[in-house]
């Protein structure tokens, strides 16, 4: 199991050091600093073995978190734990920076004592932790409160406490998708996938039981076999069903139920959390198409023309569009003409950045640039990195639609109809690249 956990600043100074196992000594702190933080080359692996001691590290801005062990631990678990540790710290004091860590070191030690026991991760849900790890002390608790805390920390529903009350029962559903594309210069899709998240903010009283439904192909097809419901499903969603390659759920979702019936039911945590993640690869709506044309005119000049076409309903608007056209390292000057938006050559980033605030569907726009090159005797060819794009669109490129989210709370007197529900779809570019 995890033998120790260290946090360093960018210089390699230790900010936090907590040792859990006897086989990890003080020298381990220095070994990591010397061999990884101060190493000359780029990091070649997130797992390093130094003198039979293994170090796992992750970096957040310029803070290093390292977990140390001498045993054959579950490596995936260690990394998941380090990420979780970052989440918990962020939930307590915001950004993970040297300043914040130093300011909260007592709190961090307290957290480390609680969420890692003898190197075994324990309950690390922020909701539960915040009920008893505070910097105000926990003196004023009654006996009932204490046992409520312990039963929540260890209980089956560790993510939610009893007795939550809201005057207005409300929930917000965000379907956030990032669409990823790699396209060849000829316009052939080399790979495309959507990775989506359903993020939920729930302000519900009591211990409500929720059921979430979407236009999952498997569910719709199954329902279709029943006969009548098929048309209903189609007419209510207006869109066909989508094939989900794979999905993962927050720990509140009953996985065995999903496995057997493919229904998503859960008791939600209070406040904001990620309900599920999913991935689709079929029938993706690619909101933009990039058509590049690069011509080398002699050895000192490049002509670049890029056309972007929007491919969605004309009534919708895409926002925050940015096209990044890489330029060679030996660029001496660039002249740009674009029909829409603003374009600038950024020498420090070796790219032409073309920004358009808004663009409706089924439109196209174009940029052309002349790039002057300095003659070099470098034999190595320019690697021609791909043209990348950023944007935001108000629909889900996967085609996912929320069909329902039902809330049941039998003990309190509010019903599904009384809950105010909001649904929003946002599609963003992930890695959206076209080779040129």
């Amino acid at each position, binding site marked *: 199991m995890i033998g120790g956990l260290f946090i360093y600043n960018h210089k390699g100074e*230790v*900010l936090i050091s907590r040792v859990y196992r006897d086989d990890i000594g003080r020298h381990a702190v220095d070994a990591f600093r010397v061999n990884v933080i101060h190493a000359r080359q780029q990091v070649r692996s997130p797992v390093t073995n130094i003198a039979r001691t293994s170090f796992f590290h992750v970096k957040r801005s310029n803070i290093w978190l390292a977990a140390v062990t001498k045993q*054959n631990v579950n490596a*995936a678990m260690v990394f998941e734990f380090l990420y979780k540790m970052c989440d918990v710290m962020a939930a307590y004091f915001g950004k993970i920076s040297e300043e914040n860590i130093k300011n909260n070191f007592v709190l961090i030690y*307290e957290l480390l004592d609680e969420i890692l026991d*003898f190197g075994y991760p324990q309950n690390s849900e922020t909701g539960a932790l915040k009920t008893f790890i505070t910097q105000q002390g926990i003196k004023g608790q009654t006996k009932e409160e204490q046992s409520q805390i*312990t039963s929540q920390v260890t209980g089956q529903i*560790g993510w939610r406490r009893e007795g939550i009350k809201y005057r207005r029962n409300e929930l917000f559903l965000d379907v956030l998708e990032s669409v990823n594309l790699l396209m060849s210069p000829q316009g052939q899709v080399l790979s495309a996938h959507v990775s989506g998240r359903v993020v939920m903010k729930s302000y519900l009283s009591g211990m409500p039981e929720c059921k979430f439904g979407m236009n999952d192909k498997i569910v719709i097809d199954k329902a279709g076999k029943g006969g009548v419901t098929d048309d209903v499903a189609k007419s209510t969603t207006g869109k066909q069903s989508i094939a989900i390659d794979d999905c993962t759920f927050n720990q509140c979702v009953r996985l065995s139920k999903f496995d057997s019936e493919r229904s998503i039911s859960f008791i939600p945590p209070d406040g904001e959390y990620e309900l599920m993640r999913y991935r689709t690869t079929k029938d993706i709506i690619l909101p933009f198409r990039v058509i590049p044309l690069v011509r080398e005119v002699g050895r000192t000049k490049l002509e670049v023309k890029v056309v972007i076409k929007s491919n969605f309903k004309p009534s919708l608007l895409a926002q925050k569009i940015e096209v990044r056209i890489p330029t060679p390292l030996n660029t001496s000057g660039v002249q740009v003409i674009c029909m829409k938006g603003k374009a600038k050559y950024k020498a420090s980033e070796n790219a032409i950045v073309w920004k358009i605030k808004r663009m409706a569907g089924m439109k196209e726009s174009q940029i052309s640039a002349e790039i002057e090159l300095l003659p070099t005797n470098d*034999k190595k060819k320019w690697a021609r990195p791909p043209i990348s794009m950023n944007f935001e669109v108000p629909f889900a490129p996967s085609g996912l639609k929320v069909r329902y989210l039902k809330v049941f709370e039998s003990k309190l007197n509010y019903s599904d109809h009384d809950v105010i529900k909001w649904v929003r779809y946002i599609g963003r570019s992930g890695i959206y690249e076209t080779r040129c």
Partner: protein
Amino acid sequence: MTDSKYFTTTKKGEIFELKAELNSDKKEKKKEAVKKVIASMTVGKDVSALFPDVVNCMQTDNLELKKLVYLYLMNYAKSQPDMAIMAVNTFVKDCEDPNPLIRALAVRTMGCIRVDKITEYLCEPLRKCLKDEDPYVRKTAAVCVAKLHDINAQLVEDQGFLDTLKDLISDSNPMVVANAVAALSEIAESHPNSNLLDLNPQSINKLLTALNECTEWGQIFILDCLANYAPRDDRESQSICERVTPRLSHANSAVVLSAVKVLMKFMEMLPKDLDYYGTLLKKLAPPLVTLLSAEPELQYVALRNINLIVQKRPEILKHEMKVFFVKYNDPIYVKLEKLDIMIRLASQANIAQVLAELKEYATEVDVDFVRKAVRAIGRCAIKVEQSAERCVSTLLDLIQTKVNYVVQEAIVVIKDIFRKYPNKYESVIATLCENLDSLDEPEARAAMIWIVGEYAERIDNADELLESFLEGFHDESTQVQLQLLTAIVKLFLKKPTETQELVQQVLSLATQDSDNPDLRDRGYIYWRLLSTDPVAAKEVVLAEKPLISEETDLIEPTLLEELICHIGTLASVYHKPPSAFVEGSRGVMHKRLPARTGSGESTESPDVGTIAGGSGTETAPSIIPSQGDLLGDLLNLDLAPPTTTGPPPPTSGMQMGGMDLLGGGLDSLMGDESEPLGGDIGGSAAMGAGFGAVPAVMPASLNAPMGGGLGDLFDLGGGVGMPLGAYIPPKTVWLPAMKAKGLEISGTFARRAGVIQMELTLTNKAMSVMTDFAIQFNRNSFGLAPAGPLQVLSPLSPNQTIEVSLPLSTVGPVMKMEPLNNLQVAVKNNIDVFYFSCQYPISMLFVEDGKMERQVFLATWKDIPNENESQFQIKDCHLNSDAASNKLQASNIFTIAKRTVEGQDMLYMSIKLSNGIWVLAELRVQTGNPNYTISVKCRAPEVSQCVFQCCEAVLKN
């Protein structure tokens, strides 16, 4: 909040000031002071002097302050054990506190204080806490048992905590169950046969129920524990699989990987024609792909595991090639791993796409990545025949870029393509020759020279080209020198008339002006071959070469099986068994996949040939000594300090060849010798597979024409090899016939090729026939147990003697014996059961990977307390230190370093026992003095005496 100010106090007299503040009456001031102390502790300052003052602050109802004091205690209690006792009262009191959070905190902290006197006081509170009404306290107490076991295992057993812990598996609270499982699993690892985790269908059912209810971390503990269970039949295994598959949709990647481990393992037991088997295969792919959208560090772990899974079950991901395409801003470690998997998944169906990608990668910036991409193109050509032509033309395009390292890498792989498809692509040789001057890496130079030599008859100026290399012969690396020698001999055999001078020149360079024994030997062999029988020389040197394998870097099957059992863990990230990087007894137990019920896919007894062939593993370059090193190790002529800094090799393939010279090992030695004779390049990993095949062909063709010359060579090999066998004591009579109704048993123990064997001679001195032999051992110090039944085939008639050898395992039940190496044996036959005891030489427990790294050795030597050191005298031994070291090495006593001080040689040696105990030794040899001194240091000092006896026996025989 401005706690950061505590980090900046560095004035003098700080400790004194802190002391005053700690003793202040004001609570706030006290707390501030303790915070300062903790901050100093964090940055590495020694604040142990404040121990009594800090402990005084412990009695407080401020929980925050209490936690800080506890933190301090955990750090310094060990250095101030007497003072730490002061804290005991508070702990005991806190364990009775009405607040469950405080009770748990006290028991949690007490377990972290590794002071004997404190642990004594811990037992009673712990016992109460294990049965506490509050689940939070119970789950903390469960982990505390593991802590206590780590400090004092005996105490835990004596106090009966293990049973209480087992009861907690049936606890009503899922988190208590999960922690109990984690604690038991850890304790069980250090007692491989204790049957602690008594997994049976009932307890498995409990675990599966808890699995649905506990935290993500608890699910991991439970799944990792489930993976150790062996289902009774395929039905049980299927029903467990069905209940584990929902975990594949968990958001936590570690849960997913642990579930994959359980499924991969239990799948082995399912019949392949079962519908469910196919369903399961299909269910595995999507979650594996999803892992690739996690954070990069997790992607890395996932990719290393997918690499194993793809080797074990290629069908799972065969349609998922695209997800392994490299993204422009993937970190380099992710890129390299993806590339590896792309090569493994390449097939005729997707080769066009793969090639287009690889070509793209070859223009990237990172040198390692580009090299690997170029190499991958070559691998594709060899793997998918239809694509070979396209691959070759892609490689030619890349050569045209003139980027130096791309060109060199391309030439290395083109050489392999030539070998795979002879007489097909030789038209490109002209292009290759154009780049001759730019080659500066040995591997590329050697590859080019091989090509020139192999196709000498088609290259008009082959002699000029080779001659140009010859000019700087002595500055070349060995690899290039050997290749050049072979290439010129080939050239001579093909065009004898023009190249006589050249061949003379290279032979004299190799035999007279070189210090390298390999080069000299090869030179002499060629010389004698050419001078005695040129026709035979032609047959030998220009013989047909064995095929090179399609798959490279495949992990050796038994290792792969073991690694599959470790999916998700560090072992699967390193692609090494845990014993290669974990010290002590933990993880030494080798895990195995369960056998399929019905069809027997036997993985037993791989012969030497396949081991040598399969040993071109992922990590081959760093682990398996190159041919030169191997020879060096075998002969151990100069005992140069080891140059490898990696951990000792985990695969025993090559080493076994080295140790077991008497048996099949000689073949492998000859294999290594004769392989270069054929004129191959041993450097490329692709050739690894060729090793196994060569010896079968070569010796036959060599022996016939080569009377004297080669005979010498083999004599030499045999002469050096003989005394290197591990020491085997002569047989002694263990059970005289008088005592056993006519059955006489004598025997000895031996370690051959990593297997411990008990060699018995059974003689029937009675008047009647004996049948139905069986053997059993009593529990013993190192868990020795028969690995199979006693194989006495025929009935033993009167006056007949039979030799039996019984392989032993070291995973049997353990009990400390007096003397340590005492073994009590029961032998049964149709007449009666007979008991006897014998003592085995502890040297048979010395494992092959017992060579410690030098730094580790130094650190360990310092680390072991001096009272564990014992000194012995070995009298009347007339060996010099080198010979002694050779002898010892043959019995797996490895010399790590040698130092000579004032005519006294000091050998530093390491030994690893089969149960993971390391023994370090220092042997002092004075020239002219037949009495040696040996100092033995070990964490378990009781073995020292036995080790000494063995060293003495080995040296004197």
